[in-house]
């Protein structure tokens, strides 16, 4: 597993305590899990995602990621409606390991309340929470 100083934590996304990230583009946020989360889980073998059109509140479970011997639930960093899911993960879940902020993105949501986005952690706050 990676040491904290080896983690890839981009500046242009925000983070949650549950190790999801969200990146803003207009009123749509792209959501995935952080490098720390994928590293802890090990080889991801399956990603379960919601249907397009479903809506979630902040903190609500929206799917799960599985490694060979563990399952982790995914929690919404912020509320909204799913406008797109990353269908490629069905056949290539390994992208969550290899490119957690790129090809490993999971869902895009239309944000209901922009204040929820603002309340997420930036890189330094997230890093501090990991070092906690």
């Amino acid at each position, binding site marked *: 597993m990676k040491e904290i100083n080896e983690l890839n934590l981009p500046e242009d996304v925000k983070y949650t305590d549950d190790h999801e990230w969200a990146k803003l583009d207009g009123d749509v946020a792209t959501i995935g899990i952080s490098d720390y989360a994928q590293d802890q889980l090990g080889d991801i073998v*399956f990603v*379960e995602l919601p249907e397009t059109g479903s809506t979630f509140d902040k903190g609500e479970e929206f799917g799960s990621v*599985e*490694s*060979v*011997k*563990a*399952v982790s639930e995914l929690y919404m960093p912020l509320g909204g409606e799913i406008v797109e899911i990353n269908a490629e993960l069905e056949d290539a879940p390994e992208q969550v390991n290899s490119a957690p902020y790129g090809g490993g993105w999971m869902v895009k949501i239309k944000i209901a309340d922009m204040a929820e986005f603002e309340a997420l952690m930036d890189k330094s706050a997230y890093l501090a929470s990991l070092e906690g």
Partner: protein
Amino acid sequence: MRYLPHTSEDIAQMLALVGAESIDQLFEDIPANCRREGELDLPAPLTEWDLNTHMDGLADTMGAAPRYKVYIGAGSYDHFIPEISRQLLLRSEIFTAYTPYQPEISQGTLQTIYEYQTLVTRLLGMDVTNASMYDGASALAEALLMSIRVTKRKKVVVSKAIHPLYRQVVATYFAPTDFEVVELPFGADGRTDLSAVGDLSEIAGVAVQSPNFFGCIEDLKQIGETIHSDKKTLFVVGFSEPLAYGLLKNPGSQGADIACGEGQSFGIPRSFGGPGLGMFSAKQKYVRNMPGRLVGKTVDVDGKSGFVLTLSTREQHIRRERATSNICSNQGLCATASVMYMAALGGTCVRGLAQLNHDKAEYLKAGLKGAGFEVPFAAASFNEFVVKAPAGFAARRDALLEKRIVAGLPIASYYPELADHYLFCATETASKSDMDLLVKEVSA
């Protein structure tokens, strides 16, 4: 005691190393108020030979085939079992192995189960089969629970022509839940009457059995089409006699989403009802909702082909209260027996054997008709069928027990509306002369 290897010298040496003065001292950590006094009040140990005599005595009281001619199927069938499976199953490496959690030293079990999964999948025309469930009844209950997981609906529908004991088990599994089980009646021809199924958009799954408890072959295609008029509702096809699919159109080709049932017919002794074999197959898209273990193909570090338990995140040891089932130990050795049987029988001979079962039952059916029995259900049957007996048959049936003949199973206790109705079964083990004798005895 021959199973306990310790000499008193061993015990003394081991206690010395452990630092205890006596074995009792090892248990002193258990509070005194939790320890029991005295010895177990059990019979004195029997020698191997005395045990054999005792067991022979118990077994001799049983009305077992081949000494008795038992014309009952009803979920437990009398088929010849080849000697090879009895002997191969006694190989220690097979029957004294645990669940194959360490794949490097369990490839025998793993390949065997992979082959079992494959041959059952091919038999039922499905996509994927698990490593086994307890029996046909629990497999059905699990299939219905699975339909609820998949559809997130709360109501399931089961045909009354499903084995009544399987339906009782379903009722047990559903009793503490807030899910509803509704029963469908059977029609005058002995097949399920789907007309009362109700609003499919509320129904998670509809289950029928084919051949059903009365031996009648259901019109699966028609039922499947009706059920699938709702896109989500799952069509569950149960069975208690898998040999029928050596001959009949399989469930998968007729729209089944889940096919599940009892596999005892394939090389497993009836053994007073267990252990049997819960077969459980589904369409590929439902694989992550399936209960039970799955074996999958992979490679080792050197690229050599091999097998492992896989998709384990569905299971209790990982997903705990959110698992697809609580099942852990399954019926692995029975699955092994059945794959040996399927391999020995082969794709060509299974057809002949299935046809033979049908022919024998038709012969008996015709004989009983000639002896004054009515055949109430017009639908085609496989190797068992229902008759309505003439007056006085019950007493005659009792008397025939003395002649080591068990003439069918009375089914009125399961279906009060079917008083004087009996379920008869004839497989390849029923000779013409035995059946002729049966017909003669019941004719008088």
